[in-house]
């Protein structure tokens, strides 16, 4: 067999530009000689497959994906690309500095250049310069190559595709979702700040009374709670979305890796099946096992050699520009077994990895649906934290205002509270509040003794059959809460304790109301 046929071919060489015409006639279009690329640094040089290593024959279609700029000379195109690179760099630097401050890039530059971060970013350099997982796999030889090369290649391909899918997901949707959320948060915070500042200024200038200010503030706080709720919900949605994408990505990349692998050919390393001292690059495609060649002249040599020896040789159409012929025989059953084991291992490995990733995800609870109660609890928590009712000072003022005006004012806070507080009905006999409230009359200041009696019987009824009854009770409790806040006869510590008990009872009643 011709000696050059045995040239070790890396996948870099698989993009050779050979156009086939009626089976065996090839036209080698390539005239290009690769130039070397200046790597970024030594680290990149060591591991980056240098383009000059590969023979330079590639189809213009593959090599020159720039027909729209074909009217430009290469020099003009280089200048244009250089200017675009500079513009992109400057624009994005400005964006970062606008967002995170002027000094950020300066501080981070050293970290990104000289540390472990630098090493990580240099991997990016390898991607840009062309790093081939297949190159490593293709140069493995012997039995190890037969088994390891396809596994390495397909896993490398999966990692690449997986990363690609994730990047597209992140940039296409994920980043958009995150930015939309961040934007909403900022708008909302800004809106709140502006409203409050405006109100404060009106109050300070006398345009607005203290009562009006507090009244309006309560409206802002309610809006704030609603906005928080929407944001919390959106954040939960985003978390669920990101988790689901992990699973989809795992499956999609495995399927894609198998598909691309079969189409492009999974390298089996460099093999010498016929033991003639000449090695060949071997690949497995959807057509089966094949020898592959660097260029048309090698194929021509192989054809001549085969015909001279009366050997059958089927030239396969090039796949992705790589010519080859079907592998007639492995030479030995052991070699054939190893080759099939290698392919099997690669596919099994892919499946196993995907199954493992999904299992890990499940273990972490990533692929289960969100518990809606978690969201509700978060929102409730947030509302309680933000809302001034019933324990906040706003209750005092709105209640005072209400009493002074002789009309019912809806207490700020949750809808339930507002609804409950707006209900005016005669008190039920068993409620302790009956003793301390007289409808239509200004309420007397609550004494410590009355509070003590009220708290003793705060739990009241164990069960209710109608929501209306519960609403009455909620209303009573809120009114009493207001009276407690207003009372000067009650110590602060006692007020605090009373608030806690009332809160507990309010929670119990709301729970019962929900069940009803």
């Amino acid at each position, binding site marked *: 067999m011709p000696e050059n046929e045995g040239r070790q071919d890396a*996948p*870099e060489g*698989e*993009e050779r530009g050979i156009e086939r015409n009626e089976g065996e006639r090839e036209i080698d279009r390539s005239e290009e000689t*690769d*130039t*070397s*690329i*200046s790597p*970024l640094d030594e680290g990149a040089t060591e591991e980056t497959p240098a383009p000059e290593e590969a023979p330079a024959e590639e189809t213009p279609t*593959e*090599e020159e*994906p*720039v027909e729209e*700029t074909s009217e*430009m000379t*290469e020099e003009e*195109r*280089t200048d*244009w*690309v*250089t200017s*675009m*690179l*500079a513009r*992109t*760099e400057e624009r*994005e*630097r400005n964006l*970062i500095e606008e*967002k*995170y401050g002027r000094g950020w890039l300066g*501080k981070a*530059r050293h*970290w*990104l*250049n000289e*540390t*472990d971060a630098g090493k*990580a*970013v*240099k*991997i*990016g*350099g390898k*991607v*840009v*310069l*062309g*790093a*081939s997982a297949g190159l490593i796999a293709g140069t493995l030889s012997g039995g190890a190559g037969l088994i390891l090369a396809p596994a390495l290649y397909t896993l490398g391909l999966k990692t*690449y595709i997986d*990363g*690609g899918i*994730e*990047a597209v997901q992140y940039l296409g949707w994920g980043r958009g979702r*995150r930015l939309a959320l*961040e934007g909403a948060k900022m708008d909302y915070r800004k809106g709140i700040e502006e409203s409050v500042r405006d109100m404060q200024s009106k109050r300070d200038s006398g345009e607005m009374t203290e009562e009006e200010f507090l009244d309006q503030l309560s409206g802002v706080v309610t809006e704030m709670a609603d906005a928080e709720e929407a944001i919390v919900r959106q954040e939960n949605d985003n978390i669920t979305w990101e988790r689901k994408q992990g699973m989809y990505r795992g499956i999609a990349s495995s399927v894609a890796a198998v598909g*691309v692998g079969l189409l492009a050919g999974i390298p089996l390393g460099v093999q010498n099946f016929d033991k003639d001292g000449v090695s060949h690059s071997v690949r497995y495609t959807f057509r089966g096992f094949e020898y592959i060649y660097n260029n048309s002249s090698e194929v021509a040599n192989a054809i001549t050699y085969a015909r001279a020896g009366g050997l059958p040789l089927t030239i396969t159409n090039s796949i*992705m520009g790589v010519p080859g012929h079907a592998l007639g025989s492995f030479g030995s059953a052991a070699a054939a077994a190893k080759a099939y084991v290698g392919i099997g291992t690669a596919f099994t490995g892919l499946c196993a990895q995907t199954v493992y990733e999904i299992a890990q995800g499940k273990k972490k609870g990533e692929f289960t649906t969100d518990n809606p109660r978690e969201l509700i609890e978060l929102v409730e928590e947030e509302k309680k934290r933000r809302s001034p009712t019933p324990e906040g000072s706003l209750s005092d003022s709105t209640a005072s205002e209400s009493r002074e005006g002789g009309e019912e004012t809806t207490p700020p806070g949750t809808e339930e509270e507002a609804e409950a507080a707006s209900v005016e009905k005669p008190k039920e006999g068993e409620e302790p509040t009956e003793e301390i409230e007289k409808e239509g009359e200004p309420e007397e200041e609550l004494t410590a003794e009355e509070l003590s009696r009220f708290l003793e019987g705060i739990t009241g009824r164990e069960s209710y059959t109608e929501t209306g009854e519960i609403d009455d009770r909620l209303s009573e409790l809120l009114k009493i809460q207001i009276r407690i806040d207003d009372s000067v006869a009650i110590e602060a510590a006692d007020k605090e304790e009373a608030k806690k008990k009332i809160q507990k009872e309010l929670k119990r009643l709301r729970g019962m109301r929900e069940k009803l």
Partner: protein
Amino acid sequence: MEKFNFVNPKDFWDKDIFKLMGLKNVPEDKKKEMMDSMMRTVQNRVLARILDSMEEVDVKEFEKLIKDGDNEKTNAFLESKNINLTQISAEEAMLYKTELINMVAAGPQATKK
């Protein structure tokens, strides 16, 4: 010539950006200059993505760690935030590579918009 609008994954991975942009005869020093610019952009994007993924309080902590120059602590911090720098770098580089190929394929007219 057939319109180019797709780089197959293998080509994309194997080939260097200059080949894919059809710049075969660019002098070495010019390539170095262009590559340096590309890498600064990738660095910026990596940094932006890290910062975007952090809460404000974490950004401050991260800034402090970088300022202190303690590489190990910085790495541990990023790890604790589930930030995989290697992956982010590869992804951003890959996306930038795609972007550049598309930009060149679209030509100067498209970028003037």
